[in-house]
């Protein structure tokens, strides 16, 4: 049973990777974008009514997660085409971070004395955590 599940997962991941590398399923991509946009905008609007508009993205994440888990529970699996289209969006999501990352990069060039200490702490903590979690996760998962 476990072997069957593992094989199913491997096939799904391989299909996802293949879809990313080869053709683009434009119709499914459009459907996924539509789902994401509708859910995000609705959640931002609803949370805005309570005065927490900036929590809309996270509420949207958990709402879509709940819907996807419910769908998986009912049908047994999430369609591979949908997973592949969504993976394509996430693969290109680095683009959305570019302006804010560029700003941080520029700010780094103009750090004062306290800024340098902050930078040293951040560099050490991030890289040490990355190294430690990587090793622990490799051993424990």
């Amino acid at each position: 049973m476990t072997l069957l599940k593992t094989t199913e997962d491997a096939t799904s991941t391989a299909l996802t990777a293949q879809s990313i590398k080869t053709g683009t399923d434009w119709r499914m991509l459009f459907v996924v974008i539509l789902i994401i946009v509708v859910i995000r905008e609705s959640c931002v609007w609803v949370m805005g009514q309570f005065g927490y508009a900036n929590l809309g993205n996270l509420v949207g994440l958990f709402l879509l997660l709940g819907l996807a888990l419910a769908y998986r529970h009912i049908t047994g699996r999430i369609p591979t085409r949908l997973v592949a289209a969504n993976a394509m969006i996430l693969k290109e999501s680095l683009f959305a971070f570019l302006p804010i990352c560029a700003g941080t990069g520029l700010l780094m060039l103009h750090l004062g004395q306290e800024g340098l200490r902050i930078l040293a702490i951040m560099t050490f903590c991030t890289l040490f955590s990355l190294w430690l979690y990587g090793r622990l996760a490799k051993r424990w998962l």
Partner: protein
Amino acid sequence: MTTAFDLAQHLNPQTAWLWGTLLTLLCYVAAKTINRRLPRLPLVVIAIALTISALMICHWPYEPYNQAVSPLFTRLLGYATVALAIPLATIRFDQLPIKRLARLLGLATLMGGLLPMSLAYLFHLSEPTILAFATRAVTTPIALNIAALIHSPLTLVSFIVILSGLIGAALSPIILRNINDERAAGLAMGLAAHAIGTAQAWQRSAIAGEYAALGMAINGVLTALWVIPVFA
């Protein structure tokens, strides 16, 4: 000679967002092309270097550029956050060692906040700066909400969060070079470098991306659960 200030003034505010977006897109596409030839150089580093260079070449100061593109890119960041739900839903938890995973997540949430805060205390940094480190390893939307509740400076919080994500994403290929388990590498990137690390994990592989999303989402929620009662 046209100065940077002059050029910024000559840009039509109604079309500046379009030029800014096109410029960013061009830099991203160019970065992807370079990354295909130099895969060892992280895409995020190449893209940032190209964007900063392009802004300098165009004599476009960062502030007006960011002001112009911010509404669109804030939306795009929101969509990228919501899109993380699908890979999270595909993960089969029945195949994971839940107890050991919980131990790792517990360690990550405590270490993500307490380690930088302790170091900041040792470096004699000011109290608001020490507090700003509590959300170092948390994705920006959650970090800003926690920061508002614990009264830590919002600008510094976003700077710390974004920069630590950037450092983690940029140096992950070196730090994780000996980790051949994509699940472990992804989880580490999501836990240590949140959303930017997750975006970089998707460049590595789909499995790494899925586990990075898992690490980022759970770490954000767990950190909010203990940081707010302790420091608010």
